[in-house]
């Protein structure tokens, strides 16, 4: 037990520690948003190419698709980590040095990945699905595939270091992760503490699943590397796929659970009402630990050698996945806002949008996780449809909303400017359209990951391009705001 942390009190830091921490969080946000913006330009390019408005080589398309996938996942991880760390450090003593270490390790990994894609020509998608990296038929070298996987591995090690610090700090204060997660309260071993920090509960959940995800990644990435250089070693492809999807699905899924902390922490601020922790809340977060880890086989529904029980479990869990936390959070948010006389700023608008985007985005996801529907929709654009929905309308609004809060709305009660409103509505409409066009394309059996589309599909891609341009416009306005205003903004007290 550290001496500075009492019951539900906050950790004290020195002024210089706080200043440095604020700079670090801003660096994470700016890096994350800039990468998002660049990757969206990549998305726009892909859409325009599929819509025959521009012409790019097929190999370039797949390089862009690879960098888009890995880039947005990386940006989501780094930005959501910034959000999470900013709030978690209020309750447990976290190290600035470790936070920065992860940031720089991350940047190193990014450089390696960029090199492997644009210098080495790697275009085997961010999922590096075995044995594709090893059989490029000359499109990229073994070295390029290896550097890509090494880059991912290094980013994983950086995150591991950060999570070890989270774990150390949480254990120092709560003794066990079960207690931090609120299990002792949930099962009646301790009275429920309404002030038990939600940031701690959410962070513990993220910590657990990501730790296991990274462990799986550390094994599977090295096995892939061994195969690259010793082709006679041929690991079981099904096992590799399981581990890769476990790793990838957990990591990207967890970003939304890390970012939702912003909703828990900021909505009470803006509405002036406390958001109490209760047993329902704790139960939901307990359930989600298992759900996030158990749903990934919905990517493998077409793989007949998979054991039936895993598929059934995945289908059942996918049905329920997201729902507990979503309901608890959505309902809680509505109760906070209802008749609170809240002033709608860009932050609150975005945070509220995120609740909608998350809730609505889960619906197409659940549909696709049903075996009968998956039989038709598997590998169609329905899949990008569902995840763009809750990433563009659920995850990003949380991150951008938090950025606005840091950029001054939290402190000076600044009102949104015309550009902010323009950004908000361009983003909202564009993101909604982007996702809906993907979903509609999927419903029309247009396959995903095709560089060149058939004539009948081109109109979809063209509408998608226009939608993408709107998203890019909105994100550009948001990002400019972050780059110019964020660095000078004071810490909201």
């Amino acid at each position, binding site marked *: 037990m550290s001496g500075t942390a009492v019951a539900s009190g906050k950790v004290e830091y020195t002024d210089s520690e706080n200043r440095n921490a604020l700079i670090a969080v801003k660096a994470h946000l700016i890096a994350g948003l800039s990468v998002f913006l660049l990757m969206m330009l990549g998305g726009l390019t892909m859409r325009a190419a599929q819509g025959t408005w521009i012409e790019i080589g097929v190999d370039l398309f797949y390089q862009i698709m690879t960098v888009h996938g890995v880039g947005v996942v990386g940006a989501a991880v780094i930005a959501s980590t910034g959000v999470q760390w900013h709030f978690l450090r209020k309750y447990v003593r976290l190290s600035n040095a470790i936070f920065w270490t992860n940031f720089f390790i991350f940047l190193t990994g990014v450089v390696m990945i960029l090199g492997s894609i644009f210098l080495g020509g790697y275009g085997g998608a961010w999922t590096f699905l075995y044995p594709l990296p090893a059989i490029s038929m000359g499109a990229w070298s073994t070295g390029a595939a290896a550097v890509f996987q090494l880059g991912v591995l290094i980013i994983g090690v950086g995150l*591991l270091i950060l999570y070890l*610090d989270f774990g150390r700090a949480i254990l120092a204060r709560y003794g066990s992760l079960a207690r931090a997660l609120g299990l002792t309260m949930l099962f009646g071993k301790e009275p429920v503490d309404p002030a038990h920090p939600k940031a701690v509960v959410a962070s513990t959940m993220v910590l657990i699943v990501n730790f296991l995800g990274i462990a799986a990644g*550390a*094994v599977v990435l090295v*096995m892939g590397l061994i195969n690259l250089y010793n082709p006679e070693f041929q690991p079981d492809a099904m096992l590799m796929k399981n581990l890769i999807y476990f790793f990838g699905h957990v990591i990207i899924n967890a970003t939304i659970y890390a970012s939702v902390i912003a909703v828990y922490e900021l909505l009470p601020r803006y509405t002036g009402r406390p958001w109490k922790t209760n047993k329902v809340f704790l139960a939901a977060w307990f359930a989600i630990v298992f759900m996030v880890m158990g749903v990934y086989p919905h990517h493998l529904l077409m793989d007949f050698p998979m054991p039936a029980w895993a598929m059934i479990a995945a289908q059942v869990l996918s049905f329920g996945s997201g729902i507990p936390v979503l309901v608890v959070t959505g309902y809680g948010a509505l109760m906070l806002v209802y008749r609170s006389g809240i002033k709608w700023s860009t932050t609150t608008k975005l945070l509220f949008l995120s609740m909608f985007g998350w809730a609505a985005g889960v619906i197409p996801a659940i549909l696709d996780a049903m075996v009968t529907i998956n039989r038709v929709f598997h590998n169609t654009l329905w899949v990008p449809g569902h995840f763009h929905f809750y990433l563009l309308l659920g995850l990003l609004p949380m991150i951008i909303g938090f950025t606005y809060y840091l950029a001054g709305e939290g402190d000076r009660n600044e009102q949104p400017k015309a550009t902010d409103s323009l950004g908000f509505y361009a983003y909202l409409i564009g993101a909604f359209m982007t996702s809906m066009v993907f979903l509609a394309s999927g419903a029309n059996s247009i396959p995903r990951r095709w560089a060149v589309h058939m004539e009948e599909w081109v109109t979809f891609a063209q509408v998608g391009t226009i939608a993408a341009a709107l998203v890019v416009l909105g994100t550009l306005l948001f990002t400019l705001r972050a780059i110019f205003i964020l660095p000078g903004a004071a810490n909201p007290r």
Partner: protein
Amino acid sequence: MIIKIKQEWLLLTAFVVLALPPMQQFLEQSMVTHMLVQIPVLAIIGWMLGKKLPENWKSKITLWNRWGITGMVLAVIIMTYWMLPRVLDAAISEWHFELVKFVTVPIMGIALSLSWPLLNPIAQGVLKLEFWATFMRLGWLYLDLPDRLCANYLLSDQRILGQLLLLSGSAWAITWTLRIMFGIRIIKT
């Protein structure tokens, strides 16, 4: 005082027993006992010896072992070296490799015992996970490789070792989970 001397003698005896032909040949007969019994026991002997080193030795070594980094690097190098199948083979067929093994593995144990407590807890965590992952990777490799890695051992031996590595890695993961999640300690360390 008496007890202290006794323990050091015990360690020495254990070392000699391991090195003498009956035990040495018995353990090296199979890949499993070679890698999962002989080498770990040698390392443990080194670890316990490291704890028993006189204080003034320890403090002299510490000067060169800030934060335990030098010692850990040494230990990791030795460990990686003895993970190469080729050198394990050589240790069986050539006596000077065997000699090197009997010297360096206990040294690795000593280095570990002197450095591990000095190491930053985060670095300890990273190394632990990396070590765990190595168990799983090697286990998987030994199970799936079509060929023998060691000329001196049978393929079936390699397969059994693979299974044992995966099993012990899993057991380790479970004890770790129990401790961190619920604060249950199965083994006291």
